[in-house]
């Protein structure tokens, strides 16, 4: 039984103006921009966008919406990939971008507290002189609030984990406008249920995250990078398996497929081998990163790895990794004017080579143009489908391909999303993957947001 959400009216606009003054917009352009993310999903603009500057303002806004049962959609940087910010039922978008203060840094405890709108890059710039850094890097210039809400990860996950492991505490505005602090800076919260982590990855459906305390890490004394081409994807993946199993604490391991390497060669005028290629990065002491690179070189050599190259100086490392850094733009350049539709399955690493090989064969049979980039240390890989959003048949073909890919991953004990989340784009896949757990999630949603105003229509249908 779907209850039709209430709409924004003049009375609510007036109430919101009392909270945020002139920081409110109903202009079509502003609403349009806040209803779209970086995905292929159709944008759904909210009725009004308010620009909050404090937790108190957010609480006031949510209270005003709750009284009228109007949907609330939190907005960070708009870099999500499954339509997380789409205002499917209209409502009030709370743009948290202006909440961009670093509240506190505690170097001795290695943590920092930031407002939700602070971006990853802003935080690391701020931390520059402390010898600490925040490692989670999803690629996009995402906000920390958004990364927390989507449980983001990225290329560093092998060594540093994901947002799941690195959020220590939160301030959250609940669906009725009350404010809670889920834990404090103390490292561990056996003080009751771990509500902090329940909000991490809740995609704005349980509350609005306004402040986040994060775990920080010492900037490594040394970093080394390595690149190696392989005859087959299976050889590359086996190198990764042996590397991790031997306890080498790799910071990043990325795989680019042959097509992607060709794209980069063309785009950046480079001369990499046109073959599946692994990119490594090691963090540690001078001695450790050298040892790690040598260990991996030995493993790779046994598995047919060619042209193993490694470097420690920043400019040399950047050169080695250039292909990886340019991957997305190089792919898009394969078909100018098109958009990248990025898929996101994750499978047990023992099935990864098989999954990528089958997916490559699938692509060869289809008219779609695509490249593959994988965070192979985690079994997570992305197919970048280059589609023309105006061609309905092409979008339909991409959807069919994605469905086959997800089902292939599920059949291999994998998941439909390793890091992008459910949003409204993958709700049916969530049901396919988890069945009855969706009912448990719905019960949690109803317990915390009985009127279904928090980002309605995402993760679970109510």
């Amino acid at each position, binding site marked *: 039984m779907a209850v039709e959400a209430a709409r924004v009216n003049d009375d609510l606009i007036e109430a919101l103006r009392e909270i945020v003054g002139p920081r409110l917009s109903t202009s079509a352009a502003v609403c349009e921009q806040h209803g779209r993310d970086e995905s292929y999903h159709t944008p759904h603009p909210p009725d009004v966008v308010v620009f909050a500057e404090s937790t108190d303002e957010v609480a006031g806004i949510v209270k005003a919406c709750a009284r009228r049962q109007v949907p609330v959609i939190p907005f960070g940087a708009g870099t999500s990939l499954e339509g997380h910010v789409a205002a499917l039922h209209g409502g009030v978008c709370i743009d948290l971008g202006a909440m961009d203060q670093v509240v506190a840094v505690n170097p*001795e*405890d*290695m*943590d920092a507290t930031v407002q939700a709108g602070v971006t990853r890059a802003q935080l690391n710039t701020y931390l520059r002189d402390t010898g*600490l850094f925040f490692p989670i890097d999803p690629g996009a210039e995402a906000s920390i609030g958004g990364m927390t809400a989507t449980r983001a*990860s990225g290329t560093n*996950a092998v060594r540093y*984990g994901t947002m*799941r492991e690195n959020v220590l505490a939160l301030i959250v505005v609940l669906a009725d406008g*009350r*404010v*809670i602090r889920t834990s*404090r*800076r*103390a*490292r*561990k*919260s*056996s*003080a*009751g*249920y*771990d*509500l902090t*982590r*329940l909000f*991490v*990855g809740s995609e704005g459906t*349980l509350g609005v995250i306004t402040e986040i305390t994060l775990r920080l890490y*010492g900037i490594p004394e*040394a970093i080394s990078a390595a690149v190696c081409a392989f005859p087959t994807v299976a050889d590359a993946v086996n190198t990764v398996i042996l590397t*991790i*199993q*031997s*306890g080498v604490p790799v910071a990043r391991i990325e795989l680019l497929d042959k097509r992607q390497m060709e794209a980069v060669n063309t785009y950046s005028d480079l001369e990499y081998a046109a073959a599946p290629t692994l990119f490594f990065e090691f963090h540690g*002491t001078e*001695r*450790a990163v050298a*040892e790690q690179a040598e260990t991996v070189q030995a493993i790779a050599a046994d598995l047919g790895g060619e042209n193993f190259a490694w470097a420690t100086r920043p400019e040399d490392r950047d050169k080695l990794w250039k292909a990886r850094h340019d991957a997305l733009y190089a792919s898009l350049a394969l078909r100018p004017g098109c958009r990248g539709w990025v898929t996101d399955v*994750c*499978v*047990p*690493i*023992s099935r990864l080579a098989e999954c990528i090989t089958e997916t490559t064969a699938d692509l060869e049979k289809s008219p779609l143009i695509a490249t593959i980039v994988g965070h192979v240390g*985690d079994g997570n890989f992305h197919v970048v489908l280059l589609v023309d959003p105006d061609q309905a048949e092409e979008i339909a073909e991409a959807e069919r391909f994605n469905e086959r890919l997800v089902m292939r991953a599920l059949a291999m*004990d994998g998941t439909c*999303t*390793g*890091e*992008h989340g459910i949003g409204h784009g*993958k709700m049916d896949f969530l049901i396919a993957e*988890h069945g009855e*757990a969706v*009912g*448990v*999630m719905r019960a*949690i949603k109803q*317990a*915390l947001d009985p009127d279904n105003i928090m980002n309605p229509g995402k*993760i679970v249908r109510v």
Partner: protein
Amino acid sequence: MTETLTPETAEQVLETVQWAAAEETPLEVMGAGSKRAYGRPSPAAHRLDLKALSGIELYEPMELVMSAKAATPLADIDAALAENRQRLGFEPADLGPLLGTGAGAGTICGAVICNLSGPGRIKAGAARDHILGFHAVSGRGGRFKSGGRVVKNVTGFDLSKLMAGSFGTLAVMTDVTVKVMPEPEETRTVLVLGAGDAQAVKAMSEALNSAFEISAAAHLPAGVAAVSAVASVAAAGAAVTALRVEGPEPSVVYRAEALKALLEAYGNREELDTAESLAFWRQVRDVGFFVADGPEAGQAQVWRLSVPPAEGAGVAARILDAADGRVFYDWGGGLLWLALAPRPDGGHEAVRGAIGDGGGHATLVRADADVRAAVPVFQPQPEPLARLTARVKEAFDPKGVLNPGRMYEGV
């Protein structure tokens, strides 16, 4: 009359919970019962004993992943992992001796549901960070699964995090899939002798901030160090601050030396080899220093406090200024274990009142059942959080049939 129900399959667990929910009959859920005395005494009518749900279901050493039924003994899991030179990364404590239920009885889901996380937590994460997926039966009487066997999975709410530390009050886990880690080739421990608590916390912070990849950091004041299982530590006659380095031998040797140089200003330095290190950290993990003054010997009450590391020494000083007892520190100063002379109210107001502005929480881990029934075992929550906790419990277990009252009265 209390009855013990011993389902042999996940299907039978489902039937049992469905029956309990229909009858609104509370169940005490247990694996081996080694941690029955951890938490508030639950007034359950019947016992749901999971001991028949035992056995490793999947172990892929190449993939660093293992699935096991709920009550699989940790001893079996450790043995299987050791054959492949692997281990559980979260170092679950064996609290049996501390709680008076004997050593080596704990089960995998018991460790996970209590979120037991050992000294390695500062680097490797807590139990909850090692769960990849699980199957469970909710208090509503529905089977569900969460996660899977891959490292990254963002399919909706992170239910594994809710389960870890829920003490069986939300759902009955029937199996769990965890990631496992390679056993390090070499483990050494650098000791700094004679540092005061506050100095020791500074030393640990400096070490943890360094590039030397410390995997555990603990501080034992002299009275605690004296009962160490490691002869050279017990004989030191001084406080001992310990920093663990693990990995390939050349790297460990180098890092241990570098660490000793880094910490020169804090006191004399010593080093423990691999065998000594393993014994030393096992005792820290299992709170072994406080076992001897346990049930038979006057029962010191044992508290566990989680605070910001830099505030740890101050919190302990405030408590021990007003009460007889001993403390030691794990997690670089962020985890305090206190053994205090027994009091009818556990001294809970003084203990919790000592926690400063940086926040934190205190759990009464060992005390007589009547004390645990009378004072809050887990940190009381401020009103909005308490209400949220009650709502989450209700979402999973509306009839309150799973371990009711184990964590909070009436929840």
